């Protein structure tokens, strides 16, 4: 290996001309990656991370105007010829794209996609391709080689597709591996596996790894150094421990503060009375999705019992497929319980007719996971917020007045009333979603992962708002999340669901300090913590296909 760094970005400046002016995507970025090193490139969406990655693999938009250098083993990627680029892409620097399942060619078997890369960069054929394919898949922790090799991408689970994506990149035998958000959409345990794999590729094989992530906690687990990018500028750069423990830039501090750290001390809990009649009563509730044509149905909830009182907030935690979303949809009357007793604010959920449905909709409202998706693109914010008031038969002026009031409460002013969803940021859209849920003054507010689609600093702000709302004593709240740490700061009680059953229930202190069930313990262990350091863990777990 040559003495110099593998990747040396010097004063990179990228401007993209758009219809009305130019977007200054990167401003004088400096970045180095040495062989055997994992560098974390951290920041929120729109910060320029992907643009930087595109520059490294020589795939900037055709009309981009650049200054500075992107030196790869001393050669400037920005001035490479077409032939040099063909060699550099893949063999020099290979990118693992995010959302692996969508990035793999859907009509080509994994075997063929691996072969495409091995032929292009390693000049292997026949037996060579076969052997090397198996070796690569083994390396990324896949055990049932034959099945995966013959599989089409849609037959792979998310985690498996991510591993295949890494194997594809490795098949190019790159000096530098770029991983763009390789853990989005993966469960905590899988996230740890994938990050561990990246670390090992650097440590054992001497590759450089550039890990691009919005999640500073995840990056802290495996990176040697961290580079924080904001609005196209590097605001902080240094060894991981230094950046985490003694951040110098305000933005880094903001990012760090937004990480819901599980080891942080618990906030003081104000004890509220639970003497009042419960708003939600579930007794041994089952939800069974009916099967279509002979297939076995899906038993989403298996005997759940729960009470939620006015003035309290209950956190419902579980991984995807645990039944927590079904539970939330049932509380709203979108799914009917198949057995057991379920009532919300006195309305029986198992027998909903037109009148009781109307009554229910007045007493329960939901804040949705995808804030923009929950707003009709053709209707204004005012329309969206006042919709729950329509059945109440208020005058226009009254509706507008109430809309303005709740919107203020969520931290937006009335200029937003006339805007359309596409003019809102994710955070603003979620505030509108919360305002809409509050406007008819419901007895129960259900939050369905309201922050999981948002950037971390925005997440923190929305959680602050929800914490603030939790202080209202007239209302009960249910907060559904896949993440224990999120629910910790404002919930009174926590319920852990696993495979449709409640496996753990208690106050926040009980669940976090003395968890009883093994599943809760594993969730706690896998939760992100800033102080942590991932131990190399190459043994991959068996996965099932989706």
């Amino acid at each position, binding site marked *: 290996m040559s003495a110099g760094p593998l990747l040396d970005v010097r004063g990179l400046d990228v401007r993209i001309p758009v219809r009305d002016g130019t977007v200054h995507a990167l401003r004088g970025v400096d970045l180095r990656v040495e062989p055997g090193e994992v560098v974390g490139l951290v920041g929120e969406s729109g910060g320029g991370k992907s643009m930087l990655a595109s520059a490294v693999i020589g795939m900037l938009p055709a009309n981009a105007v650049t200054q500075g250098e992107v030196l790869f083993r001393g050669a400037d990627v920005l001035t490479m010829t077409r032939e040099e680029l063909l060699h550099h892409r893949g063999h020099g620097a290979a990118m693992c794209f995010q959302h692996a399942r969508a*990035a793999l060619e859907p009509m080509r078997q994994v075997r063929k996609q691996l072969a495409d890369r091995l032929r292009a960069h390693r000049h292997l054929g026949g037996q060579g391709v076969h052997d090397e394919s198996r070796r690569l898949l083994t390396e990324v922790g896949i055990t049932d080689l034959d099945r995966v090799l013959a599989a089409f991408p*849609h037959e792979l689970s998310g985690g498996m597709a991510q591993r295949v994506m890494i194997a594809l990149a490795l098949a*190019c035998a790159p000096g530098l591996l770029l991983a763009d958000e390789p853990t989005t959409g993966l469960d905590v345990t899988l996230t740890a596996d994938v990050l561990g794999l990246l670390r090992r590729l650097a440590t054992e094989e001497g590759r450089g790894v550039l890990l691009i992530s919005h999640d500073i906690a995840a990056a802290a687990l495996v990176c040697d150094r961290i580079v924080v990018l904001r609005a196209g500028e590097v605001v902080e750069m240094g060894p991981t421990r230094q950046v985490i423990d003694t951040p110098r830039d305000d933005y880094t501090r903001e990012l760090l503060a937004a990480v819901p750290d599980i080891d942080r001390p618990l906030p003081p809990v104000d004890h509220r009375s639970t003497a009042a009649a419960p708003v939600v009563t579930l007794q041994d509730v089952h939800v069974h999705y009916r099967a279509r044509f002979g297939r076995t149905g899906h038993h989403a909830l298996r005997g759940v019992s729960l009470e939620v009182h006015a003035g309290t907030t209950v956190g419902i935690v579980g991984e995807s497929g645990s039944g927590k979303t079904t539970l939330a949809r049932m509380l709203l009357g979108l799914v009917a319980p198949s057995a057991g007793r379920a009532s919300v604010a006195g309305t029986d959920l198992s027998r909903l007719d037109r009148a009781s449905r109307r009554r229910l909709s007045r007493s329960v409202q939901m804040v949705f996971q995808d804030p923009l998706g929950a707003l009709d693109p053709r209707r204004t914010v005012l329309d969206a917020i006042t919709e729950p008031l329509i059945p109440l038969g208020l005058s226009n002026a009254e509706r507008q007045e109430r809309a303005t009031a709740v919107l203020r409460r969520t931290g937006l002013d009335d200029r937003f009333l006339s805007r359309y969803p596409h003019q809102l940021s994710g955070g603003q859209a979620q505030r509108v979603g919360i305002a809409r849920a509050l406007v008819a003054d419901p007895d129960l507010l259900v939050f369905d992962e309201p922050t999981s689609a948002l950037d971390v600093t925005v997440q923190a702000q929305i959680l602050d708002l929800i914490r603030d709302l939790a202080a209202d004593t007239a209302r009960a709240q249910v907060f559904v999340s896949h993440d224990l740490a999120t629910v910790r700061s404002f919930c009174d009680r926590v319920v852990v669901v696993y495979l449709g059953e409640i496996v753990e229930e208690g106050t926040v202190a009980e669940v976090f300090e003395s968890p009883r069930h093994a599943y809760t313990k594993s969730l706690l262990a896998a939760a992100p913590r800033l102080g942590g350091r991932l131990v190399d863990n190459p043994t991959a777990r068996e996965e099932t296909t989706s």
Partner: protein
Amino acid sequence: MRIVRYLGLRLALLVPTLLGVVVLSFVLVRVLPGDPLAAFVTPSTTSEDIEKIRQRLGLDVSMWEQFTTYVGGLFRGDLGTSIQSGSPITTELSTRFGPTMELVVISVVISLLLALVLGVWSALRANRPEDHVIRVGSLVGTALPEFWLGLILIAVFYKTLHWFPAPSGRVDRGVDLTSITGAEGFDALLAGNLTALSSALAHLVLPVATIVIGISASLMRHVRASAIEILASPTWRTAQAHGVRRGALLRGYLLRGTAARLPTLVAIVLGNVLGGVVLVEYVFSWQGMGQWLLRGLLYRDYPVIQAGVLISAVVFAVAYLVADLVQALLDPRVKL
């Protein structure tokens, strides 16, 4: 194996649809205004004579009986007897089906190839001058009425330039060729008769060109659109970023992906051609099913109309079935 099961399922699903088609074509024909017997009436025919003819044609019984007779006949492969000519429909069809299918199949195949090549090429040079030319050309192509285009082609290439033979037959008069399938070009090929083959091909050029210009343009626009979609997909970007060789990239990723979206489209286009061919046959005096159906419609020849409409629906349905099968073979994501 799953293909066989799928095929069985689809054929089973086809039954109710075809039954509906049979009923609809039967009813449609019966509500036609005008009397099929009008053609037999001369000043000297008596009402007795008419009754006799009515009986002979089986039109004297109730609607329901006519229907059961008709459906019963269908099961025996009997489509009835033409009122006009008095000969069995199946006999008439045997000479009509081949010429039409020859026209349709050749046109669709040529259009498909043309569309695939031009569409992908155009997508690869999106927004360059040559792409604009192709796109405008294709828009004009879809806007041309085939009956008018056929006339113009005849006026230019037959009347003025004398490049192709007169639009009045499918081989030159005097060419010796025994009919096997009725599709002259194919028959000549089977018989190894080169004179007949070249004559048949010469007659095919103008009508085929008429159809191809119309449908290849619309097919091409779809091919271009799907190719552009692929070129903008994360999938394509990934393969490109990994430096996959250009040949593999074009064949394995672009062409493959584009082709996988084609079959259903081809089936739809085939439906358009089956309809449009009526006009083309009319313009070129091509004695196929279209001309036969037209005459049936003019003279209210019930059995002919029924059979013509039914056959075109069956061909269309089979084309859809084949398209879905091909699609399933090309795209692993399609659930069978």
